[in-house]
C-alpha cells in the first residue's frame, strides 16, 4: 500500500473517519500480527486486537506523521504481546513451550515461501534478533525508532539485525533451498 495513501488514511482516521481507519488497519495490521506471532506465538491474535483497541482509544491524543504512528503502533503491540505472553504463562503453566512450529515450517517450505512459513522461521531466531528483524525488515521501522521501542542503543539494534539476517541466511531450510 502506498505511503501517501496510508498517511491520508491516518489523517482521516484522526478526524473520526471510519473508512480512513479501515484503510489504515488493512495497511498495518498484517505486519502487527506477524510481529506478534514472533513475540507472543499463539496469542498474537488477541494481542493484536488489544493493540488496535488501544489505538482506537488513544488516537485523539496522538499527533504526528505516519512514521511516528508506526512507531507508536508497534510500541503498543510490543507491550500487549508481552502482556499476553505473561498472562498465558501464568494461567497455563503446563502449556507447551513456545517453540517455532518446526513441522509446520517444513510443510510450508515444501509448498513454497509462504508468509506464515517465513514468519515461523524468523520466530525461531533468538528473541532479540527476531524482534529486530521483524521491526526493521518487516515493519519497516528505522534504527532509531526500533531502538526506542526495544529499549536498546541503535548500535545494538544494528548488530541484532545483522546477526539475525546472518542466521536466517545460514538456516538449513534456506540453505537447502539455496540450490533450487
Amino acid at each position, binding site marked *: *500500500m502506498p505511503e501517501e495513501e496510508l498517511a491520508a488514511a491516518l489523517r482521516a*482516521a484522526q478526524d*473520526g473517519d*471510519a473508512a480512513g*481507519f*479501515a484503510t489504515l*488497519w*488493512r495497511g498495518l*495490521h*498484517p*505486519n502487527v*500480527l*506477524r510481529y506478534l506471532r514472533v513475540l507472543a506465538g499463539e496469542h498474537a*491474535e488477541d494481542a493484536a*486486537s488489544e493493540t*488496535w*483497541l488501544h489505538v*482506537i*482509544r488513544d488516537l*485523539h491524543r496522538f499527533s504526528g506523521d505516519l512514521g511516528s504512528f508506526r512507531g507508536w503502533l508497534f510500541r503498543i503491540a510490543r507491550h500487549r504481546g508481552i502482556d499476553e505472553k505473561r498472562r498465558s504463562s501464568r494461567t497455563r503453566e503446563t502449556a507447551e513451550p513456545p517453540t517455532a512450529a518446526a513441522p509446520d515450517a517444513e510443510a510450508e517450505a515444501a509448498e513454497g*515461501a*509462504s*508468509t506464515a*512459513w*517465513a*514468519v515461523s*522461521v*524468523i520466530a525461531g531466531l533468538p528473541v532479540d534478533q527476531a524482534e529486530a528483524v*521483524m521491526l*526493521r*525488515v*518487516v515493519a*519497516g521501522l528505522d*534504527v532509531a525508532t526500533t531502538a526506542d521501542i526495544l529499549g536498546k542503543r541503535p548500535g545494538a539494534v*544494528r*548488530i541484532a*539485525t*545483522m546477526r539475525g*539476517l*546472518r542466521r*536466517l*541466511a*545460514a538456516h538449513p531450510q*534456506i*540453505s537447502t*533451498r*539455496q540450490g*533450487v
Partner: protein
Amino acid sequence: MRDLNALLRALRTRRGRRIDRDQADMIAAAHPPGDDHRCLAALLEAARAPGTPEELAGEKEMVAAFTAHRKRAARSVRRQRTARIRAALVPATIGLALLILTGTAVAARTGNLPQEAQQHAHRLFSALGVPAPGTGTPDPSPSTRPGPRPSLDVTALTWCEAWGGAPNRSLSRDDRRRLAAAAGGEEDIAKYCRDLHAAASKSPSAPPSSPSSPSPSPTGSPSPSTSPSSSAPSPIPSPTSSPTPSFTLEDDQPRHGS
C-alpha cells in the same frame, strides 16, 4: 594481531555469504540482498508480503469498534460540555442572586430605597433578622428618634434668650424670623420660649440652658464687660458692639414692649 584480522577477513571473503552491518541495513531498507542471498531475499519478501485474507478477516469488527468508540467519545464530550456549562452557570446564578439580595438588604437598612420598596423590604428583611432603619417602621428605642432635635432646641434657646431681652444679646432679623417660624407665629414666641425653657430645665442633657436659665428676667444681671456700652447710647463706639446691632435692638425692642 594484524595477521589474525587479515586471516578472518580472508575467511569471510572466501565464504562470500557473510552479511555485514551495512548490508543488513540495506536489506532492512528493502534492498534485495544480492544473488548470494537469493533465498534470504525470498524469505524476507514473504515475511513482508501484503496481508492475506485470513489476516484481514477481523476488519469488520475493528472498524465497528472504532465507530462505536467515536460515538461514545462524542457523547461523552457533549455530556462534559453540558456539565461544564452547568458547573459555571449555577455558582454564577447563586452569586448574582446573593449580590442582589444583600444589596437590597443594605439599601433597606440604610433607608435608600423608594418609599414603597422600602416598606416592602422591611417586611421582607425583618423576617430574616435585618433591622429596619431609624426612619422606618416603629422602633422600640426612642433614643434614636430625637436625634436632630437637641441641636434645634439649643439654637432655639439661644434665640429665646436673645429675644427675651437679655441686654447683652441681640437677635438678628433672620434668627427672629426662624424663631417665629419654630414657635408658629410672632405671638406664640413667648409661650414657645417658656415651654422650651421648661423642657430644657427638665432634661439633664441640655447644657447651654443651665447657665442661662435664670435669665428670663427682662433686665437681667448686666455683665461687667458689656453694661456700659448697652446702657448708655454711647458717643464712643465700643469695640465689641457695632452700631447696627444696637439699632436693630432698639428697632425691635419697642414692639416687644408694646
